[in-house]
């Protein structure tokens, strides 16, 4: 126990120290950022949990309100757990700790407790408003709140166990096959998509519930463990309480046991698979590009944080093409005098190019691989700097990765939307030019910020991929840049004249050409100098 406390204290001191070494200004900025983020997350989760509960309690579905909040908190914890488990959770200090007279179970527990406490915080934020509303509005005794609090502490063990299992599966896949990275990325994206579908729609689901309390019990019984948790809180049923404790604690004990058994230092294992060795050749530029692409796709963190806009764009366009433009979820709500508008009749030709390109600009602003692309080289920057590769080619490769990832999807989407809206070839070409040009511009801006706010001394690449200042700035500037294009498109739609619309769209293309040329000039002059002055 004493050792565990020492490890926990050291983890805490290490966390504090990681802020301290950045200097006072950075610490204050980081602290403000963390507080804002925490308030936003707490506020968002509390509002979602609270409003859903309120709706259900007003319908006399108090127990179902608890059930739904529990489900929601578990889904959120699972989403965070699964996305985090794609990273290597071993930690840099494991070898050092294993060399000390510390029981392995202590090392594992100290690491798991850190994750568990974060999940508990998330669980409390979601569930406390629910318990309070059920107690006060639903007129229940305060004992319900007490039971709820106890179980709110126990529940995070379940998603933690599942994410640890997933982590083990991913690390097995990475070792045994070449699909581990892809599997990790797909499952992480699936978890985020599940979160994005469930969380924003939970209140409307609650509103649409028209069932009796008895019917709600039948619904809850479909997922038994969740029902046990709910019953344990709502009625204090002893059997359900015991089952809740067993269901949450046994996996946790198992997780500690399995991780303790598996915790070893780095073991090199010779490759006995006798895979064929490939000696394919490539030009210098192609080699630099291949290297950038490999670096990108080998990091699920990198892919997860930058490919999301592209995936969502693809999904949105498939939905539009399959369901028809008039039945797209956001567009079917457009009405004039209470009558739904037939968008295909209202707009034609270049007007669709204005709408299509604007839609794609939003997703382009979410897809930025270039801001962390310099920092992610870290201490390996000596390789590209000592090899005879022109710096311009290295930077071009970083831009090309971004272009290759987004542009094929963007072009395909423009063509698909043009077919769906029957807008014609010229508007289709204009929408391709605008969306491609804008994406290129945001990639160039991202690379400039990536060079200005470069950080090579990271210990975990997530530090530069997820939290880099260059990413935040690029995102802000990209969304601000959408403004003039949105203004142009809206003006074209209001005027409704075909020639004016073509004129505006042509002007947007010229503006993008000018901006891209300017940004590229900055990269080839300032950027090259800055890259050459970097030291890992």
């Amino acid at each position: 126990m004493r050792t565990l406390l020492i490890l926990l204290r050291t983890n805490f001191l290490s966390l504090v120290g990681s802020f301290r070494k950045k200097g006072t200004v950075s610490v204050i900025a980081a602290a403000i950022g963390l507080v804002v983020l925490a308030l936003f997350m707490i506020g968002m989760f509390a509002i979602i949990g609270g409003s859903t509960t309120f709706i259900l309690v007003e319908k006399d579905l108090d127990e179902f309100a608890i059930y739904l909040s529990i489900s929601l908190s578990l889904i959120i914890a699972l989403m965070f757990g699964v996305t985090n488990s794609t990273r290597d959770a071993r930690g840099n200090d494991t070898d050092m700790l294993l060399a000390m007279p510390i029981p392995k179970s202590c090392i594992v527990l100290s690491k798991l407790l850190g994750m568990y406490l974060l999940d508990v915080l998330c669980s409390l934020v979601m569930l406390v408003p629910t318990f309070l509303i059920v107690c006060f509005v639903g007129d229940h005794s305060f004992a319900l709140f007490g039971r709820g609090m106890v179980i709110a502490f126990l529940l995070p063990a379940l998603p933690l166990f599942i994410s640890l299992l997933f982590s083990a599966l991913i690390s097995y896949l990475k070792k045994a096959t070449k699909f581990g990275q892809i599997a990790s990325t797909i499952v992480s994206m699936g978890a985020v998509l599940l979160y994005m579908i469930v969380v924003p729609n939970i209140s409307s689901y609650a509103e649409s519930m028209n069932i009796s309390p008895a019917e709600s019990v039948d619904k809850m019984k479909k997922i038994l463990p969740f029902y046990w948790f709910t019953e344990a809180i709502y009625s204090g049923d002893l059997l359900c309480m015991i089952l809740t404790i067993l269901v949450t604690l046994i996996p946790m004990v198992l997780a500690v046991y399995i991780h303790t058994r598996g915790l070893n230092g780095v073991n090199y294992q010779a490759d006995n698979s006798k895979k064929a060795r490939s000696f394919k050749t490539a030009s210098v530029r192609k080699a630099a590009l291949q290297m950038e692409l490999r670096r990108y796709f080998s990091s699920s963190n990198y892919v997860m944080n930058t490919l999301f806009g592209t995936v969502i764009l693809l999904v949105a366009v498939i939905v539009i093409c399959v369901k028809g433009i008039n039945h797209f979820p956001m567009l079917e709500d457009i009405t004039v005098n209470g009558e739904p508008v037939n968008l295909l009749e209202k707009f034609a030709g270049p007007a669709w190019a204005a709408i299509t390109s604007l839609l794609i600009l939003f997703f382009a602003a979410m897809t930025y691989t270039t801001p962390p692309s310099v920092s992610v080289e870290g201490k390996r920057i000596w390789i590209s700097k000592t090899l005879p590769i022109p710096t311009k080619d290295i930077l071009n490769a970083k831009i090309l990765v971004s272009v290759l990832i987004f542009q094929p999807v963007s072009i395909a989407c423009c063509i698909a939307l043009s077919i769906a809206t029957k807008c014609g070839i010229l508007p289709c070409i204009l929408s391709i030019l605008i969306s491609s040009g804008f994406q290129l511009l945001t990639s160039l801006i991202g690379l400039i910020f990536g060079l200005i706010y470069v950080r090579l001394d990271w210990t975990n690449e997530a530090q530069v991929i997820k939290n880099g200042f260059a990413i935040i700035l690029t995102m802000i500037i990209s969304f601000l840049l959408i403004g003039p294009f949105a203004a142009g498109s809206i003006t074209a739609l209001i005027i409704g004249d075909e020639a004016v619309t073509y004129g505006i769209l042509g002007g947007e293309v010229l503006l993008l050409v000018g901006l891209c040329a300017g940004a590229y000039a900055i990269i080839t002059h300032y950027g090259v100098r800055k890259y050459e002055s970097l030291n890992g």
Partner: protein
Amino acid sequence: MLKIEHLTKTYPGGKVGVADLSLEVKPGEIYGFIGHNGAGKTTTIKAVVGLHKYDQGTITIDGISVSADPLKAKSVTAYIPDNPELYDNLTGLQFLNFVADVFRVPKKERKERIERYAAELEILDALNNQVSSYSHGMKQKLAIIAAFIHEPKLLVMDEPFVGLDPKAAFSVKKMMREFCDKGNAIFFSTHVLEVAEKLCDKIAIIKGGRLIASGTMEEVKGDASLEEVFLDITEEAH
């Protein structure tokens, strides 16, 4: 092959990395560079391979100025750092292919060289494994193969024997000698004075960023051991 004249490098804040350092490595020579920690060895090496910009002086490799034509100078040089941070997510072979592509090594030659050096250093079976699974010594071996793969004229090595097992260290020394016997040159830093004494044709001792002794092994150490001379000279300079 390598000519450094009046090299001076001062770090931001005024700390002198190297001051007025001059030396020359001729074709066929193994040139050892020794000194205490922080003496300026790595600073000099990083300036030679183009990782550090310097304030004054000139560095030429095979007659090519490092500052005026860095790409051409790099194309005849290979560098092995003291702590080889390689691309963890690549396999060893993918990394070697990348380096071979950059130096335009044809397929036939790269296959032959990779297999020969990897067999020599006993990591042939590990080439299809990810670099992240390699030990420090294996990463060092991979960096050494990457350096030899394009047959450079000058090999710059920073503490090349750290982490190598005795057999690999022996193989690397043999490879270094063979490399220089073909008319190429090696400039390397080391703390292992016995290795320097046995392997080097010439030696330079640096302290506080200044060269305090240089020449052939006989000129520098005479009849004494290199260890005694090193300790004496560095103490005197202190």
